[in-house]
C-alpha cells in the first residue's frame, strides 16, 4: 500500500505482457490509459470545484448559494451541464466556421496539456520531460491563439476588440510570470518539474515569498480571474471574446476557465509549495498525492476568495500594473537575490561549507534565510515606493479638483 501507483502499473503491464503484447503495445496502452484517466478525473473535478466556488462566494456575499437541486445543491452543476448540452450552438451569420468551432477546443486542450507534466507523487507523473518548466510555459501560451481565433471568427467587432484586449493582457503577464518562474529553476538547478519538487527541502515560498506572490498574481491574470477578469466582465462588455458562443461551445470556455484556475493552483503548489512533499512522502509515495491535492485546493480557495472579495480592475490599470510595477519588481528581485546569494556563498564559505545544498531541510536553512531577507527587503522597498506613488497621485488629484482659495478671489 506504500506505493499504490507502481503496484497498479506493474500489475497492468504484467497482465498485458501475459496476454502476449509487445513492449510497444504495452507503452501505448499505458499512455492512453493515463491520458484518459487524467482527462476524466479533471472533468469530474470541475463539477466539484465549481460547486465549491459557488457555495463559498455565496457565503461570502451573505447568501446561501445553490441549494435547490439536490441536498446542498450538489447536483446544480450536473443540471447546468445537461442544460448546456441541449442548448443550441448559435452560429452567427458570416462567422468563420472552422476557427469558430476549433477555438473552444484548443482552449480546453491547452489546459489539459499542462497536467501531463505535473507530478502528483514521487512516482506518479505523466511525463517527466527534462524541459518540464519550459513545457508548462509553452503550453500555457497556446491559449492566446485560441482567443484570437474566437474573437475573429465571431464576426463581431466587439468580440474582436475583447479578444485584442485579452491577448494584450495575457501576453503582458507572461513576462513577470516567466521571471518569477526562473526562481525555482535557479534554486533547484534543473528544469525538470519533479527535480524542482525534490529540491524543496525548504519550500521555495519560505525562501522567496515575493517571487511566489509575483508568480501567483501573474498566473491569476493569465487565467482571467478576478480581479483581472476584464476579459469576460459579465456585467460590462457582455462576454468579450466569447460573446457569440452559446451551448456546448460556451461550456468549453467556462470549463477551461475554472480548470485553468485549478491548474495554476496546482502549478504554484508544485513549484513553490513543495508539490507532493510532506511528512513521510518520500517513503510512502501514496501520501504524496494527498499532500499535493491539499495544497492545490487551499491555493484554489485563495483564488476563489480573491474572486469573491476583490473588485475588478480596468484594463489600463491592469496593463500599467504589469509593466510599471510587476515586471520591474520581478527583475529587481531576480538580480538582487542572485547577487546577494552569490556574495553570501563567498562570505559564508568557512561558516557554512555546503551553501548550495538542496534537498534536506537543515542544509538549506542558511541559503533560505539569506534569500528570505532579500525578499523582505525588496518587498518593503516596493511597498514604500507604492505608498509614495499613491500619495503623489492623491495630491495631484486633490490639486486638480480643489476649489480656488478664498484669499485669491478676495485680493482681485
Amino acid at each position, binding site marked *: 500500500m506504500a506505493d499504490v501507483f507502481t503496484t497498479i502499473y506493474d500489475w497492468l503491464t504484467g497482465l498485458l505482457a501475459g496476454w502476449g503484447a509487445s513492449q510497444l503495445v504495452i507503452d501505448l496502452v499505458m499512455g492512453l490509459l493515463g491520458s484518459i484517466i487524467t482527462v476524466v478525473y479533471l472533468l469530474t473535478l470541475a463539477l466539484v470545484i465549481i460547486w465549491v466556488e459557488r457555495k463559498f462566494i455565496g457565503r461570502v456575499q451573505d447568501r446561501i448559494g445553490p441549494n435547490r437541486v439536490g441536498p446542498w445543491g450538489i447536483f446544480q452543476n450536473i443540471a447546468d451541464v445537461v442544460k448546456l448540452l441541449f442548448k443550441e450552438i448559435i452560429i452567427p451569420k458570416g462567422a468563420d466556421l472552422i476557427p469558430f468551432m476549433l477555438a473552444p477546443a484548443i482552449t480546453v486542450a491547452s489546459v489539459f496539456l499542462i497536467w501531463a507534466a505535473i507530478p502528483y507523487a514521487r512516482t506518479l507523473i505523466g511525463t517527466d520531460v527534462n524541459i518540464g518548466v519550459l513545457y508548462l510555459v509553452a503550453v500555457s501560451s497556446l491559449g492566446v*491563439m485560441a482567443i484570437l481565433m474566437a474573437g475573429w471568427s465571431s464576426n463581431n467587432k466587439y468580440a474582436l476588440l475583447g479578444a485584442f484586449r485579452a491577448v494584450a493582457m495575457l501576453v503582458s503577464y507572461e513576462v513577470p510570470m516567466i521571471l518569477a518562474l526562473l526562481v525555482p529553476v535557479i534554486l533547484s538547478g534543473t528544469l525538470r518539474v519533479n527535480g524542482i519538487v525534490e529540491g524543496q527541502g525548504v519550500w521555495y515560498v519560505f525562501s522567496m515569498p515575493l517571487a511566489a506572490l509575483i508568480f501567483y498574481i501573474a498566473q491569476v491574470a493569465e487565467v482571467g480571474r478576478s480581479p483581472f477578469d476584464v476579459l469576460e466582465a459579465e456585467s460590462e462588455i457582455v462576454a468579450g471574446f466569447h460573446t457569440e458562443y452559446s451551448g456546448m461551445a460556451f461550456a468549453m470556455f467556462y470549463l477551461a476557465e475554472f480548470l485553468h484556475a485549478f491548474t495554476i493552483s496546482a502549478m504554484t503548489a508544485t513549484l513553490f509549495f513543495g508539490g507532493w512533499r510532506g511528512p513521510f512522502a518520500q517513503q510512502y509515495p501514496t501520501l504524496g498525492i494527498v499532500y499535493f491535492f491539499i495544497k492545490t485546493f487551499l491555493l484554489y480557495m485563495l483564488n476563489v476568495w480573491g474572486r469573491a472579495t476583490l473588485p475588478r480592475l480596468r484594463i489600463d490599470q491592469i496593463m500599467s500594473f504589469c509593466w510599471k510595477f510587476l515586471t520591474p519588481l520581478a527583475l529587481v528581485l531576480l538580480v538582487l537575490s542572485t547577487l546577494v546569494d552569490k556574495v553570501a556563498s563567498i562570505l559564508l564559505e568557512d561558516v557554512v561549507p555546503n551553501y548550495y545544498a538542496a534537498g534536506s531541510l537543515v542544509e538549506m536553512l542558511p541559503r533560505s534565510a539569506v534569500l528570505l531577507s532579500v525578499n523582505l527587503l525588496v518587498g518593503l522597498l516596493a511597498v514604500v515606493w507604492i505608498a509614495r506613488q499613491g500619495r503623489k497621485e492623491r495630491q495631484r488629484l486633490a490639486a486638480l479638483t480643489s476649489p480656488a482659495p478664498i484669499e485669491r478671489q478676495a485680493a482681485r
Partner: protein
Amino acid sequence: MTITPVTIAFAIMAIFALGGGLGVVANRNLVHAALFLVLSLFGIAGLFVLLEAPFLAAVQVLVYVGAISVLITITIMVTRRIMGITETINRQWPVAAIAAALTLVTLGFVILSQFSGQMPVADVPPDTIARMGAAFASHQGYMLPFEVASVLLLAALIGAIVVARD
C-alpha cells in the same frame, strides 16, 4: 523500410509542416493563412522532438506559436487594406517559378550527393539542457553571441516603444 511509431510520428509531423505551408500560400483568406502557419510551425516543433531536441521544440512553440503568430494575426486583423486585396496570383509568376526550380535543383543535387545511403546517427547526450546552459555561460562557449543577442533584443524593444509613442 520498417514502419515504426517514430516513422508514423514523423509522417504526421511532416504532413502538418508541409500541409500547413501549402495552406499558407494557397489560401485566399489571410486569417486562414495565418492559422495554417500556426499548424506548420507546430509540425516543425514536432520534428524537433523527433530529433531529440525537446528544448528547441518548447522554444519553437513558445516563441513562434505563442508570440510571433499572435503578432502576425493581430497585424492582419487590424490592417483593413490587406483584407481588400482580391488577386491571388502574382503577375511575376514565371520568374518566381524559374527561381524556385533552380533552388530545387541545387538543393536536391547537394542533398543527394552528400547524404546518400545510411548516415551514422550521432549520439545525443542525455543532459543536453545542462550542456547548453554551461555553453551559454562559458568564455569558450557562446557567451558573447548571447550577450550581443540580448543587446539586440533590448534595442528592438526600445525602438518599438519609441515608435509606438508617436
